[in-house]
């Protein structure tokens, strides 16, 4: 009898797989390997890829999609989707421009931008979680609605910022620190924050639980509606953050800001291992997905391939990512 208990003790202490095993089973790891291979290829075959200037541009360009993909990932983990992030970026960017031009206050403008984004996120989240409406349809509606509001508020005109008074703001999105573009620094910081939230807080645990079995989460006392609402608020908020940085970098904003960006954002999250059926996804995956998209885009240009092919390769990788997911699940039995 005592022998049997000892045996159970041994078994209970065993970890299914170590860090290494976990890594090998993660989609983000394989995408990282793939990115490394493409980068290696680009270094060997082109002169211009591994230059400070190009790397700087790549890092900045991928940050906007990456930041938004970080917000999209928790939504997808809960088996939801947010199609409106591109439009939220456009609307909050226009609000940012209007407030900045009219008040001259950078902080007020940023606050208005993030506030607008958050407000749209609250509307999305409330309709989806409290009224139990379908996230695909609600955010599709919001995609059209927010974009139209951006058109109305901007009166279909470009809003641009010239002069010293805007320097601090333009530097926020266009500047750099120790040779690293500011948006990329923001990306890393937000990746760490969201990675921490997903892995080390009850909120993160509940996000995964919701995607695994929503009914079980409800029965065990998880505040399902609030968690659901919060992920849409976060996705919208991150679109607002991306708007601040992108408008700062461009030095101007039109109502086309962020148009069709939702597709790249969802692609980045999915390529990085977020499962549209819910239950899986990581902050690192969202970042590496965004890296892959930009490296492909940049690589095609440097390799002299017509940029018309860009969509083809992005699409190919989305399909490959889903295929990889299937293969890994199949092996797991």
């Amino acid at each position, binding site marked *: 009898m005592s022998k049997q208990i000892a045996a*159970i003790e041994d078994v209970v202490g065993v970890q299914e797989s170590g860090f290494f095993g976990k890594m090998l089973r993660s989609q983000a790891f394989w995408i990282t390997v793939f990115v490394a291979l493409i980068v290696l290829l680009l270094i060997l075959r082109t002169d211009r890829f591994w230059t400070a200037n190009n790397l700087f541009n790549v890092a900045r360009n991928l940050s906007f999609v990456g930041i938004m993909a970080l917000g999209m990932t928790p939504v997808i983990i809960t088996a939801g989707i947010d199609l409106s992030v591109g439009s939220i970026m456009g609307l909050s960017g226009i609000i940012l421009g209007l407030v900045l031009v009219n008040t001259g206050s950078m902080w007020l403008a940023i606050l208005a931008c993030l506030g607008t984004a958050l407000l749209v996120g609250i509307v999305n989240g409330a309709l989806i979680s409290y009224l139990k409406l379908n996230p695909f349809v609600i955010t599709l509606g919001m995609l059209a609605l927010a974009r139209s509001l951006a058109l109305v508020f901007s009166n279909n005109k470009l809003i641009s910022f010239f002069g010293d008074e805007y320097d601090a703001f333009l530097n926020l999105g266009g500047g750099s620190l120790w040779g690293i573009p500011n948006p990329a620094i923001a990306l890393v910081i937000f990746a760490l924050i969201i990675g921490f939230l997903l892995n080390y807080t009850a909120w993160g645990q509940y996000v995964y639980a919701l995607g695994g079995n929503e009914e*079980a989460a409800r029965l065990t006392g998880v505040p399902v509606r609030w968690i659901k609402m919060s992920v849409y608020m976060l996705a919208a908020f991150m679109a607002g953050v991306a708007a601040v940085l992108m408008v700062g970098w461009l030095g101007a904003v039109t109502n086309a800001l962020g148009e069709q960006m939702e597709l790249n954002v969802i692609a980045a999250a999915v390529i990085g291992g977020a499962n549209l059926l819910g*239950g899986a996804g990581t902050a690192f995956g969202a970042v590496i997905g965004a890296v892959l998209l930009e490296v492909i885009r940049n690589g095609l240009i440097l390799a002299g391939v017509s940029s018309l092919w860009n969509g083809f390769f992005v699409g190919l990788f989305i399909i490959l990512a889903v295929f990889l997911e299937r293969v890994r699940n199949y092996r797991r039995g």
Partner: protein
Amino acid sequence: MPALLELSDISKHYGAIQALSSVDLSLESGEVLGLMGDNGAGKSTLVKIIAGNFPASEGQMRLEGEEVHFSKPVDARNKGIEVVYQDLALCNNLTAAANVFLGREIKRQLGPLKVLDYQAMYKRAGELFQELKSETRPRDVVRQMSGGQRQAVAIARTRLSKAKIVLMDEPTAAISVRQVAEVLDLLRKLRDQGLAVILISHRMPDVFSVADRIVVMRRGHKVADKAIKSSSPEEVTGLITGAIESA
């Protein structure tokens, strides 16, 4: 001394459909109550009212003499009523430990933040599985587990806090013969610790081997409530099907 749980005149109707008609039921500590009945007889409805999934249309529920109203499952759990659901209510993508602690994670203070204390949860979950004599590893993802292990995870949940009543909805429906014996053993163990257990089951042998008392439901009415010793499988079958009106 009042009964641990006392239901009086509990009814539940959905529009014109009467799911439960004025059911009285009492439950004492340290007893296993077998709840039997055909599909649609009202046993699940009764259990869901006790578990706080939805309120009764009429009637009162008293816990240790005090009237209680549950509007959600957590209310019942906070009063010491734990449920093992028929489908076990597990998240396949989470580890065994995460499932055990779902909704009441152990946290520790990290500066101003409260973070999950994985080590403490793995340790406590491991202890619970050991108590249950189940070869379940806290770090394993539930997706990869056998039926018995999944059952252990769901039962370990009920052992987290000082529960007074454990409701089990068909715990032996989907597991192997050896595992059924283990689950029934565990039920006896819970009873010996002074808990009250309500076992809902279709399986006559299980109920007769473990229950002290049996309640039979038919078409929303309680048709029998007697000590298991003074009943027989034949009588219960008759009661379930309606061949015997009541006993």
